[in-house]
């Protein structure tokens, strides 16, 4: 292995995805992490409906001082912000953006990374060398600097653009891991057997290699997802990324930071949501890593 991030060519066969899920279900902490994510995702999905209900039960008038900066209460469990908006409603609405950006960019990264990794590992030779050289190049790129420059220059880029760009810049580490796993898988007996039986390369790739690298890719994707949530939050803190009237957790924290001394809930609530999400994802990653037994994943 000549490269910096080395894979684990001798890893035991990785379990296929469905088995993985079943084993995950046997771990209470993993179930807890999954439930946290599920609750947040459900909240995000139902956000407009819940926000409307919240508004109907405890209406707020943005024009009135009596609606602004209210401390948490029964009517507004997480208080209201400086603009007289319910922080719970904002949290759910912001979650739509934050989680969607995280999900979409992770999917993009997982797709690109898996594709490049599998192709490089499976074909080997020149293609492999070329692709991995490229990946190493991009891995050394100061990603956050480029993202800051990009979004400072295009401050009005839509949220979809944000997700796309972040995703397109986050697959490099993942592709390395997938490639290493592919290298390990392709020498295995059943792959060799399939090939001996005259299966086409594409068939071998899709039916025998891909299912065996899926677990590893999943673990690596949890790392990407955790990072991406942080990146979106960081960009929002600099006033980049999501723009009003859209909001995201990072944007909410940014809006609330100057109230930390007077109305802490505005920043702390979305910050907890971010921390909870990242912690849940990263714990899932840990558990999956144990189950899949990937030896070396790119550190974060």
């Amino acid at each position, binding site marked *: 292995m000549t490269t910096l991030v080395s894979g684990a060519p001798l890893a035991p066969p990785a379990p296929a995805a469905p088995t993985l899920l079943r084993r995950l279900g046997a771990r209470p902490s993993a179930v807890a992490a999954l439930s946290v994510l599920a609750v947040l995702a459900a909240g995000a999905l139902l956000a407009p409906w819940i926000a409307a209900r919240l508004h109907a039960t405890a209406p707020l008038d943005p024009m009135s001082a009596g609606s602004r900066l209210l401390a948490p209460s029964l009517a507004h469990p997480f208080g209201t912000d400086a603009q007289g908006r319910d922080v719970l409603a904002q949290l759910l609405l912001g979650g739509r953006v934050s989680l969607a950006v995280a999900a979409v960019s992770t999917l993009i990264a997982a797709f690109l990374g898996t594709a490049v990794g599998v192709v490089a590992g499976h074909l080997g030779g020149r293609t492999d060398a070329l692709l991995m050289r490229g990946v190493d190049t991009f891995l050394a790129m100061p990603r956050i600097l480029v993202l800051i420059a990009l979004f*400072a220059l295009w401050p009005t880029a839509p949220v979809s653009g944000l997700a796309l760009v972040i995703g397109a810049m986050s697959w490099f580490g993942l592709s390395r891991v997938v490639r290493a796993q592919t290298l390990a898988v392709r020498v295995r007996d059943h792959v060799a057997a399939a090939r001996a039986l005259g299966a086409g390369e594409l068939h071998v790739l899709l039916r025998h290699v891909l299912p065996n690298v899926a677990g590893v890719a999943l673990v690596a994707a949890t790392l990407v997802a955790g990072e991406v949530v942080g990146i979106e939050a960081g960009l929002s803190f600099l006033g980049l990324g999501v723009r009003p009237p859209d909001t995201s957790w990072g944007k909410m924290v940014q809006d609330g930071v100057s109230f930390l001394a007077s109305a802490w809930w505005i920043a702390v609530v979305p910050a907890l949501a971010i921390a909870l999400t990242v912690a849940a994802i990263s714990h899932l990653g840990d558990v999956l890593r144990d189950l899949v037994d990937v030896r070396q994943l790119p550190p974060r």
Partner: protein
Amino acid sequence: MSRALRRVVQGAAVAALVTTLAFFLIRLAPGDPFATLRENPNLSPATIDDLRTRFGFDQPLVVQYARYVRRALHGDLGISVGTRRPVTEAIGDALPRTLLLMGVAIPLSFAAGMALGVAQAARPRSRFDRITRAATTLLYAQPSFLLAVVLLLVFAAWLGLFQTTSGLGFLYGAGSGWAGFVWRVRELTLPVLTLVLLTTGAVARQQRAALLEVLPEEFVRTAVAKGAAPRAVLLRHALRNAMLPMVTLLGLAFPALLGGAVFVEQVFSWPGMGRLLVDAAATRDYFLLTGCVLVGSVTVVVGSLLADLLALLVDPRQRAS
């Protein structure tokens, strides 16, 4: 040492690629460095066109790029439109400050992270292991800027233990000498602490995993069988063999810490590369922004090169390949 050479070539390719990307993206974006001048009712468009000509922004993009590359190869990164200072000068001021921040944070976070990792691996799945892992995961999960703001508010503003800004020591008789040194250390404490808290978890996690991986191996068992104390085995044999992933991590910690430094610098008013970059981007200071991205990538490349060389030192096996 063809491997080292290849890494250098690769590093140069990264820098060239990122710079090219930055150069064109920046110029394709809406607006230009003279936007604020256009808001001035007393400046005629002719005056501004004149300025554009002087900076060469009226030339075709390809011509501008060729000129930029030619000059950059001679160490001239152009002139900042905002301050009219040479970009190399501005970066020369800022880069050492960011490197100082990272130079202190990296050894500290690795020392803390490795110690924690060893302690965790010594008794895997113990209560200590579980609690510290949960704590570092939670810390890692915090957005870096929020951690910085909280530290600033609590330790600097509220408890008054540290300064909320940097560089003002001369007002308190701490401009030079021992007092100045102490002042600088106090200034560094919170920014460095933020970076350390953010990265220690990742280091510990890696250290623990690497140790657990080598512990069952033959040579460790042999050492124990030969009568070595388990603790000594852990520290001497296992740790040594688990060094390589640490070094690998070091190379990758560079871009991550540089990214973290961007936010830390904003919050603690630390005049480093992050401040320069964000400011340049906001004012569309073309040359300064391109220069920042270029130097940022070179920093990262050099960092991973160093880590790579260190890997050779730590693991002689690598030299063979």
